[in-house]
């Protein structure tokens, strides 16, 4: 909203919001001061720092009003699909039906952070036998029980097999509580054997054709269930249209990421970029509005790049960030330590890649699903991180561990080793709990040390 972009406190952002409202400037119907969400318990918002653009304000409001949209969709007679774990595939299918709305109940893993543990979801999960040995996604079970965060879906799907055990265990517990789940198999992606027919997946991973066929047949079961729920056919034509729309979102995000992660000075803060990337997985329950929100974000970033306006000082250490942070505030912290994001792999890079439009839709979706970085070897994931970090000019890699997650301990080691070996970048592992305040000095020290290392390496 100003010529020199900067980060604002929530109070400052809300003042700007009210000024825009008073001036009659165009705003989305759901837009308003973030303070109203604090009144609802989202206390972490008070401690975050925000980009000062109208685009970012719209992004935040879009994110924070998702529950309202879901309730409104139900009230309007739409059916709600809770798609669990696959992060980016089933929603593309669901939104191909005009009367279905899909969302990830998994997203509740951020609720304890946003509400600073005041919502009691972990305690509820604990009462169900899901203690802190499991990753924060256990909050999802609490959200199903207290019914205070999202409407209970009309259909629940969950990918299992090559998924994290935490999720599988939590989802199974949900089913035992009376929430039927359509389980669909995701095989562990492997390298094709010599001579075995293989395909290159979106994003560049390779997989045997036979594994794609397994996923395709599993997604067919999902397709039938979605069509039954919708009461409408969900044929190839509808799916192809859904894929085209999903690709619009992905293309916008691709442009946004490329520009935001490469321009100097940094045109958009890390926190807003994290939120923007999340829109890819289920469009925050409104696909068309996702396009509008991302378009405005992209316009803002483009404008800043054109006039060399940055939200951070020039020369910030360029970090490639691996895994989403359980505490959103850590995205602010990295910038406070003199760093910026120059690339990410938030566990759903397959939701950012273009879905092939020149293939039968189910084949294209199966290939996309199998490109999930979580379902294959950590070395695959590391190879993609190496490729992207190199292309985006990263100077260091941060592997952010998720407390209790079954994949993090070994995966972090593999990624770190491969990154060091292949591109010689410094790698730091951090464990970020949902409210990281008690660990703030440690996290800050580690990030500062990493930034110092990067700056020192520039002098060599």
């Amino acid at each position: 909203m100003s010529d020199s972009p900067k980060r604002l406190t929530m109070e400052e952002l809300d003042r700007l919001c009210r000024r825009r409202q008073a001036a009659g400037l165009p705003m989305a119907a759901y837009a308003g001061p973030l303070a109203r969400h604090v009144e609802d318990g989202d206390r972490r918002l008070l401690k975050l720092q925000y980009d000062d653009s109208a685009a970012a304000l719209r992004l935040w409001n879009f994110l924070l009003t998702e529950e309202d949209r879901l309730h409104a969709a139900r009230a309007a007679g739409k059916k709600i699909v809770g798609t669990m774990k696959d992060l980016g595939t089933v929603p593309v299918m669901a939104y191909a039906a005009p009367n279905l709305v899909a969302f990830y109940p998994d997203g509740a893993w951020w609720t304890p952070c946003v509400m600073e543990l005041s919502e009691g979801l972990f305690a509820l999960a604990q009462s169900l036998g899901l203690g802190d040995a499991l990753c924060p996604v256990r909050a999802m079970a609490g959200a199903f029980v207290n019914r205070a965060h999202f409407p209970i879906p009309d259909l629940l799907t969950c990918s299992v097999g090559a998924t994290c055990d935490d999720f599988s265990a939590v989802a199974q517990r949900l089913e035992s509580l009376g929430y039927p789940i359509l389980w669909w198999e995701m095989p562990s992606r492997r390298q094709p054997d010599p001579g075995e027919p293989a395909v290159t997946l979106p994003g560049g991973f390779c997989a045997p054709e036979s594994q794609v066929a397994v996923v395709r047949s599993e997604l067919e079961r999902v397709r039938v269930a979605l069509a039954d729920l919708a009461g409408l056919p969900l044929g190839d034509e509808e799916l192809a249209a859904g894929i085209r729309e999903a690709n619009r979102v992905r293309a916008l995000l691709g442009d946004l990421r490329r520009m935001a992660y490469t321009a100097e000075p940094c045109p958009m803060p890390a926190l807003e970029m994290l939120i923007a990337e999340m829109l890819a997985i289920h469009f925050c329950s409104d696909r068309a509005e996702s396009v509008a929100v991302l378009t405005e974000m992209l316009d803002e970033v483009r404008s800043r790049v054109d006039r060399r306006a940055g939200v951070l000082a020039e020369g910030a250490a360029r970090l490639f960030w691996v895994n989403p942070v359980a505490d959103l505030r850590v995205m602010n912290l990295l910038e406070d330590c003199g760093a910026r994001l120059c690339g990410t792999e938030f566990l759903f890079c397959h939701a950012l890649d273009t879905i092939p439009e020149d293939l039968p839709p189910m084949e294209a979706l199966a290939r996309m699903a199998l490109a999930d970085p979580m379902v294959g070897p950590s070395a695959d994931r590391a190879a993609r991180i190496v490729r992207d970090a190199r292309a985006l000019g990263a100077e260091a890699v941060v592997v952010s561990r998720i407390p209790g997650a079954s994949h993090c301990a070994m995966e972090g080691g593999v990624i770190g080793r491969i990154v060091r070996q292949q591109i010689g970048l410094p790698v730091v592992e951090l464990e970020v709990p949902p409210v990281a305040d008690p660990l703030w000095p440690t996290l800050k020290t580690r990030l500062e040390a990493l930034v110092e290392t990067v700056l020192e390496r520039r002098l060599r």
Partner: protein
Amino acid sequence: MKTVIYSSPFVPAEWLAAHGVRPQRIRPDPAAALPSTSPLTGVCPYARAFIGELLAARGADAAVLATTCDQMRRSAEWLAASGGPPVFLLNVPATWQTPASARMYRDELQRLGRFLVGLGGKTPSREHLAKMIATYDARRAALRGTLGDLSARQASDAIARYDLGKGEPAAPELLRGGSPEPPRSTPVALVGGPLMRGDERVFDLVEQSGGRVVLDGTESGPRTLPAPVDRRRLPDNPLLELMDAYFGAIPDAFRRPDTALYQWLGRELAASAARGIIVWRYVWCDMWAASATRLREATGLPVLDLDVSGDESGLARTAGRIQAFMEVLR
């Protein structure tokens, strides 16, 4: 003959043997879990021990790991990157209610077969495979026949010997020799993940605390023995029989849905008259970590959620918790 090491009950020993290799299902030595073998924090002690054992094993020509848990799935990659023996990762579907999942398991067995051939094994003829399945089925029948006469500790030892391929099951009188059944001891079930070498002392700890294990529902116990095969159908399609015996029958916590596990527990708990359940799970094992409360709800029995770290320093704590649980049940 090449020796192939594995730990998952979903790896059919007779499939390996039919390909001309020696199958050995091991219980890894927790002492093998050196800090250098894998990260300490967040990695299940069993997975660490298995990695350590494989890296140290001189007699292992290859290893087969299964995708039945995330940590073991990733252990395969860790092993391969650490200079261990050749590793095959068997993709065992978590779902089981569709023909597609059974086909996937079959295809994976066939892929495993090609791996074994690459090791120097030989693709078995249908007749040879059927014969091998029948042989193992008969051995397991004999093993099952002895288990009923043994204490839980003895039965566990007998299964461990069988898994290692150490000949025919010993006669019950040879296996006996442990402590006699304590008078008025409290019957409990031990349910959960796999045992490591030396973990059999949990049975002793229960006895020393005034109880006895009347149902071994760990992954290392009778729960995961494959079902008997149908000898009449065996010659026609031995691979199908093998799939049915393993994939079609073994109840486990990783399967989705996990209804077969709870059906098995309901049946066996009732038959055993257990008055309490000890859940045996390793720290960082998510599948069983989520089961304790549910078991309590499903069975109405008191449950001890026993998280074990696999190191000696945790033994006193484990013993203390078992003792307290047995006092509560008394």
